[in-house]
């Protein structure tokens, strides 16, 4: 009897489950995850299956839906490009240079993450409206920002600021200075060193930050709708169209648009995972 118990203990230890609580914590994890995340998301796809392919297609290919999707994806892409370029400028200044207020500027990079989106929305609108601090001079120059697609672009740039900076920053800090010194001592110009030696090493992080900023901007709602103007076919983003269809009780339309957006988001996550694996294998190769 004694021997049997000992044997069971040894085999349990051999399974490396020496710590208790696996069953309990795994149970809690799966139960909560199912109730809060998996079942609700699955419900969206089940609702979509109630639509015939023709219905689905006619919703997605209607002019208003197409325009909203084009606007959301197009402007999010443009904003992510700006975030990539300005993100690199800012992260370079923060990591490589010393200037007054550097630590404060480093800290406020996270404001777009931390500030509730509705607050960002009303603040950007007040700033860029025709009587706003920036809107008034811009209007004088003939540029109207608030209540136009340009306003949506501004809000999307705001919401995407932290991504490229925060993904590139740790990589740039950890970069081995000897590589640059070697390149310089071998006669490479500074621009050559930066573009051929440093930037390739940062590329996976840059692309990850770019993809994250794009994904965030596509789905963004709160900071965009105040400044957007929300004119159908002109300045109406896809998430807003979902809300409008819901308020009209056109659930099928809302669901179809949501599924398209969700599938694109999943494709982006897949891409980011591949990027991160790519950067890890590059790290090993170094």
């Amino acid at each position: 009897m004694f021997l049997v118990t000992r044997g069971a203990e040894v085999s349990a230890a051999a399974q490396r489950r020496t710590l208790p609580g696996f069953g309990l914590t795994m149970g809690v994890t799966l139960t909560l995850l199912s109730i809060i995340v998996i079942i609700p998301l699955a419900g969206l796809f089940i609702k979509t299956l109630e639509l015939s392919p023709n219905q689905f297609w006619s919703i997605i290919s209607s002019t208003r839906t197409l325009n909203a999707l084009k606007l959301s994806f197009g402007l999010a892409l443009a904003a992510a490009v700006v975030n990539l370029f300005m993100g690199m400028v800012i992260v370079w200044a923060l990591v490589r240079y010393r200037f007054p207020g550097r630590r404060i500027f480093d800290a406020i990079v996270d404001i777009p993450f931390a500030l509730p989106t509705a607050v960002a929305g009303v603040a950007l609108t007040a700033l860029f409206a025709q009587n706003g601090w920036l809107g008034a001079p811009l209007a004088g120059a003939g540029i109207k920002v608030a209540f136009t697609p340009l306003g949506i672009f501004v809000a999307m740039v705001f919401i995407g600021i932290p991504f490229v900076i925060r993904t590139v920053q740790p990589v740039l800090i950890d970069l081995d200075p000897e590589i640059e010194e070697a390149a310089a001592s071998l006669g490479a110009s500074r621009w050559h060193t930066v573009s051929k030696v440093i930037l390739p090493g940062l590329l996976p992080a840059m692309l990850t930050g770019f993809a994250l900023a794009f994904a965030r901007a596509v789905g963004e709602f709160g900071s965009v709708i105040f400044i957007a103007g929300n004119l159908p076919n002109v300045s109406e983003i896809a998430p807003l169209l979902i809300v409008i269809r819901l308020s009209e009780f056109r659930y099928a339309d809302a669901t179809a648009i949501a599924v398209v957006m969700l599938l694109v988001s999943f494709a982006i996550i897949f891409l980011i995972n591949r990027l991160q694996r790519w950067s890890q294998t590059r790290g090993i190769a170094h």
Partner: protein
Amino acid sequence: MSETLPLRDLTKAKESSRSEPALVRYIIIALAVTFLTIFVVLPLIVVFTTAFSRGIGAYLAALAGEEALAAIRLTLIVAAISVLLNLVFGIAAAWAISKFEFPGKTFLNTLIDLPFSVSPVISGLVFVLLFGAQGLLGPWLLANDIQIIFAVPGIVLATTFVTFPFVAREMIPLMQDQGTSEEEAALSLGASGLKTFWRVTLPNVKWGLLYGVLLCNARAMGEFGAVSVVSGHIRGETNTMPLLVEILYNEYQFVAAFAIASLLAMLALITLVIKIILEGRLERHHSDH
């Protein structure tokens, strides 16, 4: 002295091989500072100047109104419940994922991160499709007189959905780094599982846990899109602070809208300050090991 000079020259040469010409440096710094000032600093300043544009009396009156107080109360309740659920889930998930090996771990990690990549509006929509009048469970809920959508439970669910990864995300890598040897030692000395967690695991990860809770709380109090879809905007009942900002703004009550917004902006600023302090602690804790 003469011996140190060449060394200093060498360091200088090394430094300059790693830096750009002064003009390029100034342009990069100027671009960075201007961009962050326009897009981040000015919006923050606008919030506070508009909130106080009619004086402190009007500001306080806007915050002391019945509607504002109801919204603040609801926001606090919803955030408290979401943070609690997040804590339970985060600790359980971190324990299971970081201390054990099992098939499908990567997939489970991906599932936990999922809410981060879903548009806030869709995060609300999924609950309307499930619990709304036309939803999958709608008829059953109606028959049993349970209201979830356009009521507080829906707001809690949507908020919990969008914040769900926060605590788990912070805890899993920390607890993975810690390994299992300390816990195994405690257990072999006769401590119970719960006591081991409380006395050994928790002290090691407390700053990370607090960090996760902080971020979760900030997002829960500020969530707009998801909550807006499920709330129904019933005044005094299902309006959280961000929703009230929208309503007041659309009614051209700018001072009142920005007064509520200023509270949320303060929350964001305080969150950032605590975050920086916690990051310092986390780093120190890390270098101690």
